[in-house]
């Protein structure tokens, strides 16, 4: 039975919508469309590449997925000790460990996604030079691969909140929005850097530095309320500031809702993403020749 079906299929296909199925391969100059429809057709590849990244990440490690907890947890301990205890950095009335851990989660997701996506095209050059698929899938998969780690660490955050008796309010429903914003920021920057990395390997050395610098520019160890009110909107130019404060507001509830700052962040992310998409698509045509 199966074999009959299989043989019949190609015949059927060859008769439907003859004209539309002809695809023209030709040189493209300058800017091209983002090609979302094609991306949708390749959603299974996105899924499998993400799955591969997750599956392979903790292979041959003794602690496995525990690393997803260990990293932010120990950073939280260090932050609590040095910034919370010794430097007495204010934390908007929230216990400092929860205050910093809540910020470290989106931060780690972002930092991981940024690093992975920036190196993703170079790391997958065997695919790029041998198979066709929309190249956008590669940095996207690299960004999404960090979500599992995030979810694991999120469970720890919930335990921590339970320990300190913090109950999130209705604002928690906005959390996916802030998560999306973090992913959008990472993808936006990752698109730029991954495409640049294909041409200029200098990018690889810039990323570590960039991530460290960005961490200090983001209110992870300190609250954004330390920034004078009039500079707050400007501070939002760093979209991760909006994300981190948004997380604190949605989960811990005690900080004030991020106002103008958030909208500036959203605008920056949209610009970063659109610019990244178009730049990526423009450079994409040369990836296989240059990488």
């Amino acid at each position, binding site marked *: 039975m*199966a074999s009959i079906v*299989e*043989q019949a*299929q*190609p*015949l059927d*296909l*060859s008769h439907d919508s*003859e004209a539309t*199925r*002809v*695809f*023209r*391969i*030709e*040189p*493209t100059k300058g800017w091209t469309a983002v090609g979302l429809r094609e991306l949708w057709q*390749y959603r*299974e*590849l996105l*899924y*499998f*590449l993400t*799955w*591969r990244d997750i*599956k*392979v990440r903790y*292979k*041959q490690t003794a602690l496995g997925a525990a690393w997803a907890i260990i990293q932010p947890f120990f950073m939280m301990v260090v932050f609590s000790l040095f910034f919370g205890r010794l430097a007495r950095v204010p934390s908007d009335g929230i216990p400092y460990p929860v205050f910093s851990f809540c910020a470290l989660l989106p931060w780690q997701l972002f930092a991981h996604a940024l690093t992975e996506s920036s190196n993703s095209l170079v790391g997958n050059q*065997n*695919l*790029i*030079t*041998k*198979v*066709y*698929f929309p190249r956008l899938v590669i940095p996207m998969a690299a960004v999404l691969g960090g979500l599992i780690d995030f979810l694991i660490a999120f469970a720890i955050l919930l335990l921590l909140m339970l320990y300190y008796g913090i109950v999130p309010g209705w604002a928690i429903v906005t959390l996916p929005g802030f998560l999306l914003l973090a992913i959008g920021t990472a993808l936006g920057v990752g698109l730029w850097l991954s495409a640049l990395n*294909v*041409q*200029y*390997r*200098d990018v690889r050395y810039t990323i570590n530095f960039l991530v460290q610098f960005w961490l200090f520019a983001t209110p992870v160890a300190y609250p954004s309320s330390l920034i004078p009110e009039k500079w707050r909107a400007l501070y939002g130019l760093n979209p991760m500031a909006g994300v981190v404060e948004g997380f604190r507001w949605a989960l811990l509830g005690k900080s004030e809702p991020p106002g103008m700052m958030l909208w500036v962040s959203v605008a920056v992310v949209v610009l970063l993403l659109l610019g990244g998409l178009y730049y990526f698509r423009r450079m994409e*045509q040369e990836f*296989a*020749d*240059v*990488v």
Partner: protein
Amino acid sequence: MSDIAIRCVGLSKRYRIGQTEGYRTLRDVISETAAAPFRWLRKTSSSNGNVNPAVESITPAVNSIWALNDVSFEINRGDVVGIIGRNGAGKSTLLKVLSRITKPTRGYADINGRVGSLLEVGTGFHPELTGRENIYLNGAILGIRKAEIERKFDEIVAFAEVEQFIDTPVKRYSSGMYVRLAFAVAAHMETEILLVDEVLAVGDAQFQKKCFSKMSQIRNQGKTIVLVSHNMAAVRSICNQGLHLQHGRAVLQADVNQVIDAYLARTEEAEGPMEVETENFVVNEVLIESSSSPILKTFAPCEIRVRFQPKIDVGDPGVYIGFLTNELHRLAGLDLKDFTSLPPLRAGQSAEIGFSVESLPFLAGSYQVEVHLKDMSRPLIERVPRYYRFDVAETPVYGGRHLGSWFGNVGLTATPIARLG
């Protein structure tokens, strides 16, 4: 258009030679950008005077080659086309353009139908993942839907003969198993057009036979196949059409036998005629072939025979055969007198003498053969005034990865030793 699967019109692809050597760093760009005004100044100042050649040579010219140059052809639906040509003729570039991996510089190609390409066996295989996981991953990379893979899973595993190891990470696979599994996934692509680069030269003789029958099966389903191969026997048996590329140009597209014959004739033109004469011998042919497989493979047996006629009576005929690299460095040599002595030959009597080689030690690549014919009774040694080229296909040696120039030309039969204290 409905009967045409692929139509190329003036397809051209230019590569910059300088760029293929590594990548440009930001420093290069900055220094180039910084130098630009000076270049401009120099140009404008030299435009009214004489060009200083010394200054001019400092700025490197951007070298480029046309890997494809104004290639136009049509492939009908259901045709199986073998693309042949020497290394660097543009065969692989053509497949890369048709499979959309790289963009053409000029011209266009119309593709009528879903395209699947197999430019390398096992692209995207991850050593840490199991055979089962890699089937799904590789399938997704090749554009096979998950549902389709699920439906064909057992068939793929059976084809690859890896049932017992399906849940073992592929890094523990032998190179043969690895290649079989990779080919099995690719062979189950359900696309109307299949682009295949030199990938049939993998695996052992038995598996190759299986690959060939699978290709024939795909052909018989009425699919269009474009195949690149150096293996003329394979091209002749699978393809009905041939396309000969030379220096990026399409030289001839016709019936496969016609194209191959023309290609071989042309190759001889370049390398000299097939039949050559020395003072006392006529050499009709020098054959290097494997009795068990259509291609020459590393560590596989092969035969090398010289067919000739002496113009004079030869009392003690002999032959020396030298194996050389393309750069004419001598790698090995065989002299018949070290093995046996032959009965005398009369003038005009035809003879075929040579050697059966148990295990051909050369790694993948192309080589040259040099022949001396002798009569030890006179004594007389005459060198045949041309080299005969032969190709060793890419075959799995040392675990099967592609070997770079560090590995030389000769394969060693080796096993690792590790005595750890």
